[in-house]
């Protein structure tokens, strides 16, 4: 009988640690795609001793590409935020 009471008591106490009891009905913060949390890199620099225009253009092309990637990242952040906000607001 004592053992049964001890088991019952422990069950009641330990069930209190259950996640379900802790987070009765709480919505977690939505995950963010991994690519979005990588910071944009610095722009590439031209070799200061170069006299070739082609090398300068090559760096400019690289930097344009970096800009386009960063622009997409910002646009995707906006997209992510708008979508997640809509989903969050639907839970009421």
């Amino acid at each position, binding site marked *: 009988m004592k053992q049964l009471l001890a088991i019952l008591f422990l069950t009641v106490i330990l069930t209190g640690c259950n996640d379900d009891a802790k987070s009765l009905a709480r919505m977690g913060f939505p995950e963010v795609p991994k690519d979005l949390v990588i910071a944009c890199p610095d722009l*590439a620099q031209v070799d200061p001793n170069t006299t070739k225009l*082609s090398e300068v253009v090559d760096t400019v092309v690289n930097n344009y590409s970096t800009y386009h990637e960063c622009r997409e990242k910002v646009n995707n952040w906006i997209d992510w935020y708008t979508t997640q906000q809509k*989903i969050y607001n*639907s839970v009421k």
Partner: protein
Amino acid sequence: MFSWIIDFILSGLPDWLWPAIALGGFATYSFAAIIGNFPAFKPYAIFIKPIGALVCIGGIFMWGGAGVTAMYEEKIRDIKEKIALAAEQSKEANAKIETKIVVKKQVIHDTKVVIQKELVESAAKIDAECKLDPSVPVILNKAAKNPVGTVTVDVQK
């Protein structure tokens, strides 16, 4: 913790218990009222009647409480279902964005490769017709350098 244990015990009780207790209390009260008419049982009836009334009132009170709890539990279940659905929608939305990122990154990269290839083909011609002044890379590098890279903005004020 204590209130949770009480909740746990109360939520484990069967639905019919509180109405049964209320009914039992009412039956006891009625029975005491009837036997109170007989002089031999009157002393017992005086004692049983308030107990029956208290049990009946207590049973009705707890029955109502259980109803309110059931209503809130239903609401919590609804919200939990909505949250689970929202979490699923959130994952789907993230998967779409991730796909978009991969595709767009690839397009940007491919475009860069094509342009660089064109540049390599025309490099000799470009360099033959134009010689840069040494100030050009310096000016360009100044523009490429992040102007806020070394600036610390104190937002505490």
